């Protein structure tokens, strides 16, 4: 467990971004699976001089949360405790998992409730993340700072000569920006862009990196802004990973467009830099084509920002002493990339961006309607491979994210050669410029669930909250029996309970279990609880509890009770 670097440095003057005084980059604590507890809470942070800013964070952080490390093949078990003042959800962005564990808008965690999802990690080694996803509240909860990295490790990645000493030569950086209103509080409404950049929750961040090859895991966690990154000395850097996996070989670039929700892993070679040398990771966002998020000229107002249409420093870097056993060369090869066979696609889904024009009565949305939590927009047969084409004949750029799967982008504007070299690989977010289309291919191989949907949406959280989101279910190839189930044999023991309860459901598979207290408040949510695994109730106060059990096949509900 790493110790959080003190926020004391933040008391150093914060002067509208003009000061050349920097604050030390915070590296989030690490949390290692397979059993993790994430407690989301309201808190406050000293982000600038003056009053503290109301924030939301996880496990004692004052902004953001711990980095969760998990190994491919492990089954991760999460205890998500919502100690926020509001209901929320926690979405495992990029993970392939059952929809009921996904943390989308349907998995609402009321205040004071524990949600216990678990799933087998089948994703490849890469940088994923987790964040709130409650419809119409995502912007607010994300703005507060709730979220964290989720890093998957696997044997293939571990065998490569890559930097992986967390916080030393393997640095996770979440970039976002915030606008402040009176008393140093975050602006939430009518604000597409922040005015001041935050790196892992630190304004004007700096880091000392050892004189060797460095791995940066960069996440764009903005509301709308893209970053066209590069380095102030115009050095070449190497893209080694996309959203959902490592590339086949490093890609040498000088600039890289990172849109909202995207993650890129890059290597920078500092092995020949002089000790003490300084340079900056930059966003070269000036003079972009119209439609580039953050390229608007205005400095204030809903679509304005002090960072708009500017080149600005994202991270100040100084070179320090080399560590023992450093990586000093860029590897030639990484992980063989085996793309999905384009010819294997059985059908094509088409998505059209609609609305959002100036003075339009409708916000941005997809054809078929703005988000309706009770409407399933697409039904995807399990074991199918599909092409999805998203067309944006619209006024502005967006980012498109789909849950459940990692995809390969196979065409832009119908042209395979127009796909950027940097975005070849496994992706779960794609940038969709105005007046363009993008086509990806994905496999929907398991986790059929006709009841609980997955989402696809614009990852601009203000667009998502306004309804630029739809949902799909993955359905089994054969019809599910609707026969009634004999629940009479289901029992809960011991009763009265002290430390834990067991559910004896015999041959009945359970889809969902929720426990309510005597006031009817849900205090524990267990999607698809594992058979034979006790449910810990030791922290519950003495009293009477109802247990709602939902059958997997028929979705019929039965209620049992116990006393503690």
């Amino acid at each position: 467990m790493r110790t959080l670097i003190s926020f004391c440095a933040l008391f150093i003057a914060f002067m509208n971004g003009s000061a050349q005084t920097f604050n030390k980059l915070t590296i989030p604590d690490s949390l290692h699976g397979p059993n993790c507890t994430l407690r989301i809470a309201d808190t406050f942070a000293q982000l600038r001089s003056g009053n503290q800013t109301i924030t939301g964070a996880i496990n004692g952080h004052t902004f953001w949360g711990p980095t969760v490390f998990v190994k491919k093949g492990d089954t991760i078990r999460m205890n998500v405790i919502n100690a926020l003042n509001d209901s929320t959800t926690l979405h495992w962005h990029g993970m392939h998992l059952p929809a009921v564990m996904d943390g989308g808008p349907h998995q609402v965690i009321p205040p004071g409730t524990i949600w216990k999802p678990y799933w087998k990690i089948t994703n490849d080694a890469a940088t994923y993340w987790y964040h709130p996803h409650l419809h119409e509240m995502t912007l607010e909860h994300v703005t507060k700072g709730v979220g964290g990295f989720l890093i998957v490790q696997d044997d293939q990645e571990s065998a490569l000569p890559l930097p992986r000493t967390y916080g030393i030569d393997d640095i996770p950086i979440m970039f976002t920006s915030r606008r402040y209103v009176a008393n140093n509080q975050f602006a939430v409404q009518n604000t597409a862009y922040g005015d001041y950049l935050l790196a892992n929750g630190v304004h004007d961040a700096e880091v000392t990196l050892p004189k060797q090859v460095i791995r940066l895991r960069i996440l764009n966690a903005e509301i709308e802004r893209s970053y066209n990154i590069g380095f102030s000395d115009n050095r070449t850097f190497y893209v080694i990973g996309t959203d959902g996996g490592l590339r086949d070989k490093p890609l040498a670039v000088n600039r890289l467009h990172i849109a909202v929700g995207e993650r890129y892993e890059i290597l920078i070679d500092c092995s020949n830099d002089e000790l003490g040398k300084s340079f900056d990771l930059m966003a070269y966002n000036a003079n972009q084509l119209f439609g580039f998020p953050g390229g608007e000229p205005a400095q204030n107002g809903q679509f304005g920002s002090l960072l708009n249409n500017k080149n600005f420093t994202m991270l100040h870097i100084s070179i320090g002493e080399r560590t023992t056993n450093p990586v000093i060369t860029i590897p030639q090869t990484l992980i063989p990339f085996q793309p999905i066979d384009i010819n294997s696609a059985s059908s094509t889904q088409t998505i059209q961006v609609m609305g959002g024009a100036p003075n339009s009565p409708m916000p941005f949305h997809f054809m078929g309607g703005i988000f309706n939590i009770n409407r399933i927009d697409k039904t995807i047969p399990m074991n199918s491979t599909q092409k999805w084409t998203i067309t944006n004949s619209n006024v502005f750029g967006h980012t498109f994210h789909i849950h459940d799967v990692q995809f390969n982008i196979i065409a832009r504007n119908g042209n395979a050669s127009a796909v950027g070299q940097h975005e070849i690989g496994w992706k779960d977010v794609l940038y969709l410029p105005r007046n363009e289309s993008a086509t990806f291919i994905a496999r929907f191989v398991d986790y059929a669930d006709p009841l609980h949907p997955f989402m696809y949406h614009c990852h601009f959280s203000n667009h998502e909250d306004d309804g630029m989101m739809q949902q799909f279910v993955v359905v089994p190839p054969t019809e599910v029996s609707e026969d009634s189930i004999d629940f009479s044999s289901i029992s809960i023991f011991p009763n009265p309970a002290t430390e834990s309860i067991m559910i004896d459901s015999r041959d009945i598979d359970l889809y969902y279990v929720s426990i309510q207290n005597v006031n009817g408040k849900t205090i524990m949510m267990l999607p698809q609880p594992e058979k034979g695994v006790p449910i810990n109730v030791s922290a519950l106060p003495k009293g009477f509890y109802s247990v709602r059990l939902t059958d997997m096949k028929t979705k019929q509900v039965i209620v049992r009770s116990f006393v503690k």
Partner: protein
Amino acid sequence: MLKLCCTLVLLFCSAISSLSVETSNIGRVITPFSAPMAQGGDFSFENFPQAKAMAIVFTCNHCPFAELYIRRMNDFHREFAPLGIPLIAINPMDSLLYEDETFEEMKKKVIRDSIVFPYLQDHAQSIASMFNASHTPQTFVIQQVSGMWKIVYQGIIDDNGKFPELATPHLKNTAKAILSNLSIPKDVIASFGCKINYRSP
């Protein structure tokens, strides 16, 4: 499940307020209210028959930012109640939603924090509704004007939660202005902290 989730979403998303421009309630007439006090008995305006004004602070047990202000609220009450401006704290949080906000927990807090000001439970959220309160700790001052209690200040206790020595003491300044018969700025200071989620009617 879809229907259940939808209901939950609607139930808990009723207040999406945050830091938008806040509606001014200055000038609004407040009907004298009564409510149970965590110290025992019921509060009514008759408890302070000599009051010229009252500082009304909406607060709660579980909000970490509200927690920072308890000592300052005690100090204010000790200083200004004898001068005719008592501080009345009101907990408008739904105790079904937040287990930390039950009346029993309020009683414990009074003892734990040596609270000297009346700490009321607004069980039906009717007092908070009357003030149109949105966050804890949000602060109002009401004053008797022509026989009616009216809101004359809407804002915050001060502007630095963690370091009171660096703060502008807005509430104290308002109290001093009232005691000196000076005019009170009518500007609303936007509230922040933990949202008051109103139960659906």
